[in-house]
């Protein structure tokens, strides 16, 4: 059985009275421990699809299932719990809390107050062992994105979502970040969307998205 599945998922936006579907009937499955790449041009609905899969947005029709359970049957608190415990996120922009150190920014991925050792280990593996106590503004863009990767990996999530995590990086750093995500995800699945095919070299499977639909 698949870990995460979209079944005829649609996401509708109403724009100046005109409705259109950013995600238009997508069905796909994510297997345990799989690296699934989703490739599509700008505006094709990649981010929207990722929000649906991760429960950050609710589909207008169709549904999303995690471990066989439709997300629509969960309440807000349960979905929050799912995002905190089972999912990890790397956003397009490396959002960090400016007043927390790199280490602390990683630690907030869990509510457990005693997770320092795990966070230090991850940051070490990401090559930031010397910069644990730096504030975000004292890190380079690539370093910040690696802190975000560490935050997404905290607590060994079952699924890691990455929304163009390489967008703000140069090509070499981008490839490095994807590679690190892939190496460190352990048993977790990785769902990554991008418009840049070269970032998906290590993907087990690539799905193409055009105008909110999966095309083959």
């Amino acid at each position, binding site marked *: 059985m698949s870990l995460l599945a979209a079944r005829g998922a649609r996401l509708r936006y109403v724009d100046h009275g005109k409705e259109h579907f950013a995600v238009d009937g997508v069905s796909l499955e994510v297997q345990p421990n799989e690296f699934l790449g989703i490739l599509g041009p700008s505006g094709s609905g990649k*981010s929207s699809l990722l*929000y649906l899969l991760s429960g*950050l*947005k609710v589909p207008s029709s169709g549904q999303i299932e995690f471990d066989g359970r439709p997300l629509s049957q969960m309440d*807000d*608190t349960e979905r*929050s*719990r*799912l*995002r*905190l*415990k089972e*999912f990890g*996120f790397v*956003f*397009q*922009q490396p*959002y960090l*809390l400016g*007043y*927390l*150190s790199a*280490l*602390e*920014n990683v*630690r*907030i*991925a869990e509510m457990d*107050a*005693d997770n*320092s*050792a795990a966070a230090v280990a991850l940051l070490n593996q990401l090559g930031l062992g*010397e*910069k644990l*106590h*730096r*504030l975000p503004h*004292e890190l380079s863009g690539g370093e910040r994105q690696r802190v975000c990767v560490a*935050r997404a990996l905290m607590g060994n999530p079952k699924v890691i979502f990455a*929304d163009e995590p390489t967008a703000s990086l140069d090509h070499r750093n981008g490839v490095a970040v994807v590679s690190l995500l892939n190496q460190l995800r352990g048993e977790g699945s990785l769902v990554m969307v991008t418009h840049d095919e070269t970032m998906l070299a290590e993907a087990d499977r690539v799905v193409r998205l055009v105008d909110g639909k999966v095309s083959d």
Partner: protein
Amino acid sequence: MRTRGGEKAGRRSNPLAPITYLLRNAGKTIPLTGVIVLAVMLVAGIISMINSIPLSIRTIYSYSKEFTGVTPRGDATKTLPILEEIQAKSPYAIDRVIICRVTVTEIQSIVGKWPFYFIGMNDADTRYYLQRQRVTGIEGRLPRAGLPEAVISRPVAKNLNLKIGSEILGPTKEGGFSPNSVKVVGIAETDRWLMLSSIEYLREYHFPPIDLGMVSAKDPAEQPKLDQWADKHFKGRQAGILGYFQVEKDTNEMFATLYLILNVVIGTLVLVVTLMMSMLINIYQGQRLVEFGLLQAIGYTKKQILTRVLTETVLVVILGWVLGLFAAFGLLNLAKTVMMDPKSYALDVLDPVAYAYSIPMPLAILAVAAGTVWWRFRKFDPIGVVERRIV
């Protein structure tokens, strides 16, 4: 490399603890706290200072707590019959009846000059009177019968800047005439305000030629009841009853309008400060929308984020309020030593009313802060914030 706190402490502490945010964003925490500190200090300070006026007046005339004063009206021969009637009919045991003469002089109050009674009694009555006014000792001696001499208490000495040998009444003395130069011969140690001479001197040299009476209850706790009883008993007759209750009533009436104005002013101040604070809080929270969105996106519930922000606000408000109270206390103590004490003006640095007045503001700020946060979170879309940077 920058490190924050010991490695050990950092390990267990929660990075999202409200106190962490407050400490590391001192640039925001300090102005917020500062506004509350200043406002609380202002409110508590103003109320204490204003309250010190009626308090001073009550303190100045507090000697009247010990006696029921009796004056005849329209017939100077009535003093003795009135005093006899009180002795015969009073439901409260009477300790002593004193015959005295009075002339009016002045003392300085925080709001200008106030009339004050210069009382003459015989030597035995003077001793009883002083003991009843809680005098613990005398510098100098008591006035001798018929001589231009006076004994005053310590607050009066401070207030008028008098020493042993100073003139208190005199032929050219403004506000305190006497044909002779009346000198201070003794200063009594008590917190009561007193000016005493011999009845013989006042009878000889002062108008009006009317004996007055003072009646003390056996149990000092019954004195107010005796006042009230006598006041009722002689209502409409040729007798005037003077008691501390009239001082209280007069000060209450005198300051009723002032307090009304004060309430409006404080109310407006609370409103203005609350508005200002809510604007500041709103701006600061607006700057944190990305933070809130990010936390929500990675799995914190609205309730958790809301609780955290509100806890921060509660901490700031409580800290500001407590510091404000301490600041007010410090400022009032300063005012007391520098301004009030040298003139014996009363000021209660721990005035409960003043501190109570400082409570509505922190509560209003909390309520408005809670309201604004709740309003923001009502329709909060973490994605809109995180991905599209709608701030």
